[in-house]
Every structure is written in C-alpha cells, then in structure tokens.
C-alpha cells in the first residue's frame, strides 16, 4: 500500500468508529430513561457523527477520486467498513449502551489526546476539536458506570452482564496492522500500544469506584478493522443507506 492509500484507510478506521457508534446512539433518540438523558445521548451521537463527517471529508480529499463524504458513508458495503466490533454492538439495554460508551470513550479520549500531536496537520486539527467533546463523553459514561455499579442490585447485575459480554471487544481497539505501524513510524498515526496503560488505569479506577470487577478469562474477538464484522453491522448499514441507495446520483 502506498502512503496515501494507508492514510486513507487510517482515516476511515477513525471515522467509521465515530459514525457507527454515533448511529447506534442515535437509534436511542426519544427512547431514553428520562428526558435529560435522552438529550445527553442525542448530543453525544451528534458529536460523534459530526467528528466522523469532518474525517470523511478529509478522507475523500486524500483518496482523490472526486468522491464526497456521502459516497464514503452511503456507498461502501459492509466489508469496506473499518470500525471496531465494539461500536456496532446493539443497544441491548441502558447498561450495554453505557458500557459500550465507557469502553470506547476511554479509548477515544486517550487516542484523540495523542492524535493532536500527529504530524498530519488536518488530523491533529480535527483531534484538537474532538478532544473537547471526548472529555465530556468520558465524564458522562464514567459517571453512569459509577451510578449503575453502585445504584441497585438490578443495575449492578445488568452492568456486570454488559461488561462480561462486551469485554471481548476491548483488545481490538489497540490492534495495529503493518500499514498503520508505518504511519506510526512517520509520526502520523497514534501508537495505540502507548495509550493502553492509560486506558487500563482509567477503566480500573472507575470500575473500582463502581464496585465492579474487571472481567477475566475472556477470549478476545477482532476483525472489524479488516472489514470482518459481527452480523449486526449489515443490518445497521442496510437501514442507514436505504434511502440514499434507492435514488442513485441525486442531490439531497
């Protein structure tokens, strides 16, 4: 892969994570446990989709094939999406939603912090804007982990189930292929191995406050970054792309 193609794929990985998680959260709009939380989740969904949008605009420019951000979102099929498996997992209940957010938000906070130092000025600028939102997202989901862990027996049990079932997607967050390592060497991509200890210590701190134990003995899944997804993504994309694909080539 030449370096433009590597950079293009790298931007897609970041953007697809933001888009797919934002989409999942946007499915919850009007279904929140109370009005203030509904507003908070819609707001976070909007932040994520907005960040994805800036990244797709940049990716389209790097690809140089006269495509738009919409082409990248609405006309790629399942195998071309590069998001991690974690973000496409369904909204099983509020504990799953917050657990998924918390794991991703923690990763994303340290990731954006590091990406601000990228030698790629556009990526660094987008990260500098995103980090403000990531900081709030991290506080929001972290507070919920503490509330749910500490709250009632039911909330504790539900949260435990969510952590047990979503933990298998944690390791993939840090996976890097040869092309990405090349970009790391050039100072463009974030070395995810370097943010892993920050991730672990934040997760441990919040989970301890919440009275939760970190799941052990979980077999780790991966594949999203290579376009091998869980079965959930196909349905998500079918819904997301349905109108756009039904009327090819028109303006919206």
């Amino acid at each position, binding site marked *: 892969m030449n370096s433009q193609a590597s950079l293009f794929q790298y931007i897609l990985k970041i953007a697809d994570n933001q888009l797919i998680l934002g*989409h999942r959260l*946007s*499915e919850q*709009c*009007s*279904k*929140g*446990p*109370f*009005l*203030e*939380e*509904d*507003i908070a989740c*819609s*707001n976070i*969904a*909007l932040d994520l*989709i*907005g960040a*994805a*949008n800036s990244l*797709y605009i940049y990716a389209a420019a790097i690809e140089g094939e006269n495509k738009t*951000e*919409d082409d990248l*979102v*609405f006309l790629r099929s399942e195998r071309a999406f590069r998001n991690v498996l974690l973000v496409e997992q369904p909204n099983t*209940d*509020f504990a799953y939603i917050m657990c998924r957010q918390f794991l991703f938000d923690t990763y994303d906070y340290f990731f954006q912090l590091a990406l601000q130092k990228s030698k790629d000025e556009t990526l660094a600028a987008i990260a500098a804007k995103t980090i403000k939102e990531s900081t709030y997202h991290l506080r929001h989901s972290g507070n919920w982990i*503490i*509330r*749910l862990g*500490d*709250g*009632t027996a*039911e*909330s504790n049990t*539900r949260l435990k189930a969510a952590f047990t079932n979503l933990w298998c997607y944690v390791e993939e967050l840090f996976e890097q292929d040869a092309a990405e390592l090349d970009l790391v060497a050039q100072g463009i991509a974030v070395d995810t191995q370097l943010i892993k200890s920050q991730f672990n210590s934040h997760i441990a701190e919040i989970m301890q406050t919440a009275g939760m134990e970190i799941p052990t003995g979980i077999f780790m899944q991966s594949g999203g970054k290579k376009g091998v997804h869980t079965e959930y993504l196909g349905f998500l994309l079918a*819904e*997301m792309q*349905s*109108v*756009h694909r039904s*009327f090819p080539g*028109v*303006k*919206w």
Partner: protein
Amino acid sequence: MNSLKLDENQLIENFEAKLAKNEMIEPKDWMPAQYRKHLIRQISQHAHSEIIGMQPEGNWITRAPSMRRKMVLLAKVQDEAGHGLYLYSAAESMGISREEMLDQLHTGAAKYSSIFNYPTLTWADMGAIGWLVDGAAIMNQVMLQRTSYGPYARAMVRICKEESFHQRQGYEIMNVLATGSVEQKEMAQDALNRWWWPSLMMFGPRDEESPNSEQAIKWKIKRETNDQLRQRFVNQTVSQVEKIGLVVPDKAIKWNEAKNEYDFGEINWDEFWTVVKGNGPCNKVRIANKIKSHEEGAWVREAANAHAEKNNKTKAA
C-alpha cells in the same frame, strides 16, 4: 398593604388590572384557580407535543440520505426534547410535577398535538414536517411570546428562535426534492398532500367550536383566535408551495382580492375529531412507545436515585 388580607374580589381586580396593563403574571403572583388550570393544561400539552413529536422525526434519523441532513435532523429532534424540557419547567412553576404530567400523558388524560398521530412514510415527510408543522407551530408560538404568564412567554422566545431555523431547513429539504429527479418531486408532492390538511387542523377547531378560546383571550393567554392564525398560515404558505413548483392539495384555494387573503376549502372535521379522540393512525403506537421507554428506564432512574441517596448520606456523615 398585605395581600393575605385582600378578599377574593380585590385579588381578581388586581389580577385583571395587571392584564389590562399588559404586565406579566409571575409564579408568585396570585392568580385565579381557573387561569392556573387552563395554563397547566395548555403548557403541559405543549410540552407533551414536543416530546411525542420526537418519534415521527426520530423515525428518519438513521435513514437520512446525507450526512448533512442526518446531523441537522438529529439536532432538530434534540431541540424538540430541549423545548419539552423548558415547557415542563414552565408548567412546574405552576405547581404540577413532571411525574404527574407524564402520568397524565401515559394514561391519556393529557393530550398532545394530533399532528404527531400521522405516520412519517418517506424522507420528504421530514421536509413537510419542518416546513408545515413547525411553520404552523410558529404562528401559535410567535403569539405566545406575548402570553400573559411570564415563564411560558420567556420559554416561547427561546423556542421561536429554534423553530424558525427548523422551518427553513424543512422548506429547504422540500425545495431540493421538488427541483430534483421526477421521483423526488413525486415524493415531495405526496408528502405535501398528506401533511397539508393535518397542518391546517393544528390550529384547532373553528372559533365557534373552541370552548376554551374566549376565556384564553380574555386572560391574554392567547392573543389571536384559531381561525385568525390558520388564515395567516394559509396566506403565508400558498406562495411558498408555488415557488417550488408544487400544488396545494385543495381545489378551493383561491386568492380573494376583496378580503386580501386566500379562500380555502373545508377541513375534514370528522377526521380532526377522530384523531383528537384517539383513533388516528398512530395514537396508540406513539403512547405505547412512550410508556415502553419510560418503563424500560425505571431501573435506570432507580439506580441513579439510589446512588445519589448513598452519596448524600456519605456527605452528611
């Protein structure tokens, strides 16, 4: 002078004198029980409309056909939730709790705008709702910025700013569709056909059949009647329809030179009352969805309360 010693007649006199001077009534002011009751009903109904209104539009967030449209729609639905929040707070200032209001919504004791009992079937419905439904709502809300109850009037000032933006983006969606491909134009016309009449119904029954209107105008809660607002909406909207090459689905629509306004056809009042009474296409599903998310959220609210209580105890100890 101690207001506690005033008798009821004097209190009413003072209240009416305030209204006559166009002064706002504030939460701590004395007000007739009927005024309070009327406003609680109206403000909570308005809040519920914002909240139930999130469903028909929320239905299209995941399918919006471009990134820009997706972000704008999500932001719009989030705005509606925010409006619901200010309005619940305004109603709370009159001495009703959020829980009571939600109970009334869930049991059907409180109404919300019937417009949200129609289904959103195509993407063009997002254009039609923004343009027509928000447009009709603005007619009411602009008037309500001068309503006599302070917290309600102030909530309206904020809401109106956002609603005008919603209306512009709705019209822009319709404009793009109406000037797009043949299929897109058909989609736009179809949406206009389905939403036109329900939008006119949003202003409520004809003046002679609107039992609450007269008192509401006397108390300066409302400043104009249903029929006056409806007429203004038609006058404003017909030229917007024509400008983008669509057709108003009313054969009787005609400019009346003498009256300097449009004549328009008779609203199907049977349909209006059918939907008001709970038998519109989506009445049951909207409330069922609302109850479902409320019930599914019960354990989350309980957990948050339990955690807050434990925290308070730790702090107190």
